[in-house]
C-alpha cells in the first residue's frame, strides 16, 4: 500500500501536464472561435479528396497515354 504515497502525487503531476496543455490551448487562441473549425474540417476533407483523386487520375493518364 505504501506505493500509493508515490502514485497519488505522480497522478497529480500527470494531471498538471494536461492543465498546462489547456493553458497553452487557451493562450494560443483556440477557444476564441469554436464553431468555424468543425466546418473547416469538413471542407478540408472534400478538398484533399479531390486533389488526391485528380493527382491519381493524372498519374493514370501519364502511365497510360
Amino acid at each position: 500500500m505504501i506505493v500509493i504515497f508515490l502514485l497519488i502525487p505522480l497522478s497529480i503531476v500527470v494531471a498538471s501536464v494536461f492543465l498546462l496543455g489547456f493553458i497553452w490551448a487557451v493562450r494560443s487562441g483556440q477557444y476564441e472561435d469554436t464553431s468555424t473549425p468543425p466546418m473547416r474540417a469538413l471542407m478540408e476533407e472534400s478538398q484533399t479528396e479531390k486533389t488526391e483523386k485528380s493527382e491519381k487520375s493524372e498519374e493514370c493518364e501519364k502511365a497510360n497515354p
Partner: protein
Amino acid sequence: MQSLTTSNAGYAAGDLDTRLQAPGADVPERGCFHCGTPLGGAVFTSRQKSFCCQGCLTVFELLTENGLGDFYRFGRAAGVRAKDTPKEEEFGYLDAPAVRRQLVDFADERVTRVTLRVPSVHCIACVWLLENLFRLKPGIGYSRVNFPRKEVYITFENSQVKLSELAGLLASLGYVPELNSSDLEGRPRPRVSRRLWLQLGVAGFAFGNIMLLSISSYLGLDAFSGPGLRKLFGDISLALALPALVYSGADYWLAAWLALRGRVLSIEVPIALGMAALAAWSTREVLAGRGPGYFDSLAGLLFFLLCGRMFQQKTYDRLAFDRDYKSFFPLSILRTSGKKQERIALSELQAGDRLVIRHGELIPADSRLISGPAMIDYSFVTGESEPVEIAPGGHIYAGGRQIGGAIEVETVKEVSQSYLTSLWNQETLSKEKKGSLGSLTNRYSRHFTKIVLGVALGAAVFWWFRDASRCLSSFVSVLIVACPCALALAAPFTLGTAQRMLARRKVFLKNPAVLESLAQVDTVVFDKTGTLTASSAGPVVFLGEKLREDEESCIYAVAQHSTHPHAVRIAKSMEGERGAQTVLWFSETAGGGMAGIAGGREIWIGSAAWLKSRNVKAATPPATAGSVAHVAIDGNYRGCYTLASALRPQAEEVVRQLSGKYELALLSGDHEKERKRFEELFGRGGQLHFNQSPLNKLDFIRDLQAPGKRVMMVGDGLNDAGALKQSDVGVAVVESLSAFSPASDVIMSSQMVPRLAEVLRFAKSAVGVVRLSFLISVLYNVVGISLAARGLMSPVICAILMPVSSVTVVAVGCGLTRRLGRGLECGENAQEEGQA
C-alpha cells in the same frame, strides 16, 4: 456530397441569424445557380447554368476559372447575390493612410493583416470560399473566417494588393465588407475572455482532483489507510485548492470587497463570506492533520460559479449590441472639388466641403443644397415617411436620405456637431439605465445575507452558553452551508436559457436582465411606422377611370425603369399580371416624375406639381390617401395611384391581445390622416399622438414614467432612438437583422411582431422560473442551516448538499424555461402551417 449538404443544413438551422439570409434552403426549380434567387425576366446563362444577374454570373465564372468550382458542391445555390455590389473604386478611400492605419490590425512594410466584418457569410460554402481567397488573387496570403462573429482575417502583401482592391474583391463576390465610422474608433470586442477560460480550467482542475481524493473519505475507506494517507490527502487538497482560490476566485473577492466598501450587500458578499469560512476552516483541519477539510466543496463551488459566468458570457457574446449612432453613418463620402471627385473618409469631412449624394445615400452632416432637386427622406430623423422636397439653397439636416437623382451639397457643420448628434448627446441618453445584470439576485441576496449572518451569530451565541467548544464550529458551518451558490446560479442559467430561446425566434435581448424588465412592463408604446405598419405591405390602388389592360402594361413597363420607391411599388403591384411592353425612350426628373414611351404611348407618372409643369392638371386625391403618383397618358390626365402604408398582417391581433393586460399608446411622426383607423384599433383606452418629433416621443415616454409606469417602447430605428433608450425596455423592430440595429434593449425581427404578447408572457414566466429556483435554493439552505446551527454538520453532508443544490437549481431553471420556450416554438409552427 450528401453528408456535406446535411451538415450544412444543420448549421443553418443552428445559427440564428443565418436563416434570415440563407437562400439555400428551398430553392425553387428555376433559381439562380449561384444565389438561388427566383429567375424573373432577364436570365444570364453560362455553361448551361442560369443566373439572375450579371454579378452572379461573373462570380460563377471567376470561381470556375480559378478552380474553385467546389464552392457549388457545398450545397445548391450557396452564393450571395452579387447584384449591384459596390465597385472597387468606391473603396478607394480605404487606401488613405489615416483610414488604413485605423482599420488594419497589423502592418509592416511587406504584409498587412486586417479584420473585416462580412455580414453576408451564412454557410459552410462561404467559409470555404473566403478561406480560399488566395487562389483568386496573387498577393493574398492566409485568410481565416470566424463564423459566429462573421469576420474574416486576411493577410496580404502590400506590394501586390491594396486594401481597396481586397475590399473590392470581397464585394464583387457578394461579401460586401461592412465598414462604418465606428470602426475607425477602435471597435470594442466583447468576447469570452481568455482569463475566464483559464480561471475555469484551474478551478475545474482543482475540483476534479480533490474530488477524486475525497471519494475515498465519503465511502469511509480511509479507515484502513491510516492517518498518514489522510495527512497526504489533506496536504494535496490544500495545495490544489490554493491556486483555485486565489486565481479563479479573484473576481469574487474583488467584487465582494467593492460591494462592502460601497455598503451594498450584493450576491458576492455571502459567496465570499462562505468561501472564506470554508477555506479558513479547512486549512485549520488540514494543518491539524484531521483530514482533507471541505476543499472539495470549495473547489466545486468555484467551478460551478465560473460555469455559470461562462454560460452568461457566451450568450452575451453572440450579440454585438455595442453600436452607437455612428454605425449608421457611412464610412466614406464622395467629395467634389471642381472637376475632381474623390472618396474621402467621413472623419476627414470638414465644414464647407462639397459632396455628391446619390440615390439612397445618407446626408452625413447638416448641409446646404447646391444643385439638383432634392427629395429627402427624413424617416430616420422625424419618422415622417414621405420625402420632403428641398429647393437649391435650402438647408438639409444630417440623417436624411436622398431619393432620386444625385445632388450636390455643401456641408455647413461638421459631422460631430450636427442635429442627430445633439439629439443623442442629450443628458438622459448618456445616463446608464438602472437595473444592472442580476439585480433580481441582488435584491434577494440583500435579505439573505442579513438572515444568514443573524442565524450564524445566533447559533454561536447559543452554543457559547451550552457548549463553548462547538461555538466556533457551528458559526462557521452556518456560513459554509449558506453560501448561496445555487442562488447565484439560478438567474444566469435560467435567464440565459430564455435569452437563447428568444434569440432562436429572432428576438435578441441585450442582456438577461432585460427579461426582468420585460416581465415588469405595464405600458406598451408603439411607434407606428415600421412596427404596426409596413410601408411596403400596403395595397397600391388606382383612383380614376379604369385603365385598359394595354395601358396598364405600358405603365408597368415605364415604372419598371425607375428605382424610385413609388415606381418600384407600382411596378410590383402589377407584376406577373401582364407582359411588359418595350420602352423606347425614358427620362426621369428627380423629385418630380418620369416620362417614357412604351407601346406607342407616352406615359407620364409623377407628382401633381410636375404634371402641372407639363400642362396637365391633376385631380386632388382624397386626404386619407397616403403617397400619391399621378398618371397621364399622351398628355391626358387619367388618375392616380395611391400607395398606402398598410397595417402589418396580424397587427390588429397583437393590439387586441395586449389591450386587456397593458396600457397602450401609439406615437407617429406622420400626419393625422390615419388617426381614424388607429382609433378603431386601439379603442378608447389608447392614447394616440401624431406629428411627433423624436423629442416629443422622448418626452411622452418620460411623462409616462413619471408616475411609475414601466414602459416598453416598440419602434423601428433612428427616429425614435431617444425614446427607445428612455423607455424601460426599448424594442427595435427590424426587417433584416444585419441591416439596422439601433441602440435598444431588444432587437426583434419584424416577423415576430405578431407574437409580441407571447414574448411578453414568456418573459414573465421565465422570471417566475427564476423565483422558483430561488425558492428551491432557499429550501436547501434552510435544511442545511438548521443542521449546521444544531451542530450536526459533517463534511459529507456539506460536500453533497452544495453541488446537489446547485445542480438541481440549474436543471430546474434550464429545463422549465426550455419547456416554456417550446410552447413559443410550437405556436409559431402552427401559425406557419395555418398560413400555408
